[in-house]
């Protein structure tokens, strides 16, 4: 489980980074600390319970990482590659994802709620029991993904494709949708009201 140790700096509401006393913003040599964390995450091992919140990541290759119960809340991901990654029961809530790919990703039980997604691809992904509540998604593609029992409740979806997806028990109540396609998907088994 997440350790959720508060940053040691008085008044800071962020969590301390993994094996540190402070958040990244209050760490000495923060650039080196961040590089070290990325290096750890991208090795071939499975990692769990890593806390890395409020971090900005750009052009990072997280393809094939294997992470369980990790916390990446409020991070900014720009051109980050999560293709074929396993990020199970991880928290990505209130993040910004721009030009990221999750193709072939296994993100079951993860939480992406409250995030902004711009031009992101989730094709051929395993997204069962994934929490997308309140997302603001533009130009995203979930085609050929398994979204069984996932929740998009209260989200804002613009030009989002759900082509040939499993939408059984998916929750689309209270969503605002413009240019959303459910072609070849079992949308009749999803909840819209």
């Amino acid at each position, binding site marked *: 489980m997440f350790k959720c140790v508060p940053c040691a700096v008085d008044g800071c509401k962020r969590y301390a980074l993994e094996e540190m006393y402070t958040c990244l913003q209050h760490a000495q040599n923060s650039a080196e600390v961040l590089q070290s964390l990325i290096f750890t995450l991208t090795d071939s091992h499975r990692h769990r319970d890593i806390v890395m919140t409020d971090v900005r990541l750009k052009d990072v290759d997280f393809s094939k990482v294997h992470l369980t119960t990790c916390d990446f809340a409020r991070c900014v991901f720009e051109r980050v590659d999560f293709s074929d990654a396993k990020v199970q029961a991880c928290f990505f809530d209130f993040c910004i994802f721009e030009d990221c790919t999750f193709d072939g990703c296994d993100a079951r039980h993860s939480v992406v709620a409250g995030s902004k997604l711009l031009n992101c691809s989730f094709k051929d992904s395993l997204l069962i029991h994934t929490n997308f*509540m309140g997302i603001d998604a533009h130009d995203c593609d979930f085609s050929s993904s398994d979204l069984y029992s996932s929740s998009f*409740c*209260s989200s804002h979806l613009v030009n989002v494709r759900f082509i040939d997806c499993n939408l059984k028990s998916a929750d689309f109540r209270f969503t605002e949708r413009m240019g959303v396609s459910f072609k070849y998907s079992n949308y009749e088994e999803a909840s819209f009201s």
Partner: protein
Amino acid sequence: MKVFFHFSLNEYANTYLIGPEDGGDAILIDPGHIDLELIERIESNRFTIAHVLLTHRHAAHTEGLGTLVKIYDPTVYAGSPSVYDHPVRAVQDRAIMDLSGITVEAIQIPGHTMDSFVYRIGNSLFTGDVLYAGRIGSTNGVMEKALLLKGIKNRLLTLDERFLIFPGHGTISALKIEKLFNRELIDAMAIDDLEQLSHPSILT
């Protein structure tokens, strides 16, 4: 401490397995269905199920108990001791239990059923059918709904909004997410006086 999710085909309920990093006595929350995958997960982590916590009495959350007690010898904790064939230790509201080194706080929130409990372990809330991602628990009547809403308002929404929610069905979440995006909850909490909601006069 490790937490594992197990998805049951028995009414699509969630079972949670919680145990120490190095194996040993573990807690199982809501054994709706015990199958080979769950047994393998327990055994591969060198866990022994020493404690079972039931969030409420419904079969989707309890039906695997019969199979489980044939393999392990757990102490079962629940809100109503008389419901189950297996001996059950009654849980009291606000009880703090030390279950093999894992501290569990019991929070009684009746409404979905009268024996409904939420269990808090660290910053995690195992909410059963009290609160899900995007929904509040179903109830049989207006009185029960008022009880449920009052419980959620007074006992859950007062907690740190960074608390995580592990519900009995559906996706995991966090209190902050539910406060912002759970329209059922937002609409219900907009009712100024939940006491008024439960007053018998509204039934007429």
